[in-house]
């Protein structure tokens, strides 16, 4: 049961990360493309039946026209069928390969707002996809950095013990006691205001990883210490095994389950950390979308009262990712136990 839910979670996360890795293709529009004619548009409705009741196998949308109440009404005079793998805004796949194909889009002048639009008429679904790239991979790389540091430090401390162990573990306690959120804010604050978003993201990742290592380090230290004291490690030493060999072949392979479980717990934690920072405006600046700075619009009153879709989707995405990672972590714990 648990393993099945964990496997499902793993597949979902894999799919999600694949989407986030190729945002240009999965998003209908670029994250910065504005359409000033359609600010605050609600999610576009997909239709299968037109006004005369005819069934269309490929869903279509109608254009929008502003109505008197400051909202929008559908203009049923023209249908815009969804177009798959069609050309649209150009982007670079993985930042390298120029392309303009999109998974799904509609012909201009129709606009496809699957999750509505923001004040500048930008497609929120596209921004959510691009924001996922930032948020998910900030979490992932941050966790990878924390685990690499934690694994190295923990394995050394546990394997060698003694003074090195004391020094490393006391250092980890200092790091755990530091209020990393304030440090992050401080580190961000000393950067100039025009810090490019990519650099801001790098800083976020470095700080997440640089302050996240103590917990995995302490767990891995325990495993390494118990493996390192086993007699087969002593016996291997008696046959001429070097420290490096013992760490590589006897200690590190045994820390695998701890590393995976910790990873599955750290990633959502770090995704949330990035979201929190960007929400506060000290993470990734709003010119590049992240789930955090998208949720930052929560600070606008009208969002709460009328433009619910601004919040709903990034929030849901966040809940989904966190839940999936925790299912994965539980599965990993059960399997390794």
């Amino acid at each position, binding site marked *: 049961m648990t393993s099945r839910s964990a496997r499902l979670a793993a597949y979902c996360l894999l799919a999600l990360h694949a989407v986030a890795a190729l945002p240009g293709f999965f998003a209908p529009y670029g994250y910065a493309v504005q359409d000033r004619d359609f600010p605050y548009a609600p999610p576009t409705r997909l239709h299968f039946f037109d006004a005369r009741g005819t069934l269309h196998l490929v869903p279509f949308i109608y254009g929008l026209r502003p109505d008197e109440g400051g909202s929008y009404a559908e203009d049923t005079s023209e249908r815009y069928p969804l177009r798959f793998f069609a050309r649209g805004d150009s982007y670079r796949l993985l930042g390298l390969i120029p392309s303009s194909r999109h998974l799904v889009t509609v012909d201009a002048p129709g606009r496809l707002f699957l999750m509505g639009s923001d004040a500048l008429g930008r497609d929120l679904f596209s921004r959510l996809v691009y924001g996922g790239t930032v948020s998910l991979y900030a979490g992932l790389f941050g966790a990878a950095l924390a685990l690499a540091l934690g694994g190295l430090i923990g394995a050394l401390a546990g394997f060698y*013990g003694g003074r090195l162990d004391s020094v490393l573990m006391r250092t980890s306690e200092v790091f755990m006691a530091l209020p990393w959120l304030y440090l992050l804010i401080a580190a961000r604050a000393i950067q100039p205001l025009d810090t490019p978003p990519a650099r801001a993201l790098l800083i976020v990742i470095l700080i997440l990883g640089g302050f996240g290592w103590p917990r995995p380090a302490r767990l891995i230290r325990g495993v390494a210490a118990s493996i390192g004291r086993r*007699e*087969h490690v002593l*016996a291997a030493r*008696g*046959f001429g095994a*070097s420290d490096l060999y013992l760490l590589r*072949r006897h200690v590190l392979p045994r820390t695998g389950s701890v590393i995976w479980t910790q990873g599955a717990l750290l990633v959502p934690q770090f995704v949330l950390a990035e979201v929190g920072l960007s929400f506060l405006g000290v993470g990734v600046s709003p010119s590049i979308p992240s789930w955090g700075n998208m949720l930052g619009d929560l600070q606008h009153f009208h969002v709460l009262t009328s433009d619910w879709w601004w919040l709903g989707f990034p929030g849901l995405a966040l809940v989904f990712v966190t839940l999936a990672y925790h299912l994965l972590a539980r599965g990993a714990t059960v399997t390794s136990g």
Partner: protein
Amino acid sequence: MSSHLQSERPSLLQVRSLSVEYSRAGAAPVEAVREVGLTIQPGEAVGILGESGSGKSSLALAITGLLPPRGRTTGGSVRFEGIELLGLGEADLDRLRGERLAMVFQEPGLALSPFMRVGRQIGEVLRAHRTVSAAAARERALDLLSAVRIEEPDSVYHAYPHQLSGGQQQRVVIAQALICEPKLLIADEPTAALDTVTQAGLVELFRTLRAELDMALLFITHDPQLLAALADRIAVMYAGRIVERAPADHLLSAAAHPYPRELLRCVPARRGGVGRDSSPLHVIPGMSPSLSPPPAGCAFESRCPDRLDRCRSEEPTEQPLAAARSVACWNPSEGPPR
């Protein structure tokens, strides 16, 4: 090679007044090995006989540089093939261990990694020391499995340690130890965890392998009968010191020190017939002394049937007794035991 030339060969291992102590938190350190000297000639089999806590394992660990972090050598020298091992860097020790001298531990089940197939564990010892291909290491590992008289080398090669019996596991460990054809094999109670039949098989294996490989053997045990079958010379350890050394047959038939004499009396005698021996088993009264710090006089004094007054205050020094024999006792006995 003539016996004359053999005596001209330099010692393979020369241990001089080696001391080992273990530090303890908030207490005086334990002096587990006290000024022990030991010489092993190439190809020779030396047995160390002693009870638990006599320091015999610490001696072996100190020789191979494998003492746990709490333990350290506080003096003396260990020369192996002319190289001083004490103070030698870890990298140099790593090159030596497994290649020139190898060690076999008491619990074969613990000495093998439970996560690796045994064939690979044997081959990796070779690959740690020689530049050989994986295929060649595999070939050699299979040879070694046959050499240690494993019945089905191919299936054992692919087995995990837990799938093997204790005797098979110990044979695998011995194969690991021998794959580089070391000049000295140190075996620390290698048969203690095994049943008698398996034990006998392993003792036989040690005997034949030693002859085949012209390898010296330092065999550590609490069981005098094993040494009778294996060792050329025996050194008896008690409370961190060597109290007597003698050729194996001399020691087992006519020990001079009261401790080995008493120890040998503890081995139940085999007499003809079944159930006829109803005499109570012999027990040495008392316990071995604390070594933190060691007693001022002879460590065996409180348990000794032949003690003198001076035994309490003066520690006996090792005295030559006859050719290749010595004893550390103020009142050694002559002739066969009572």
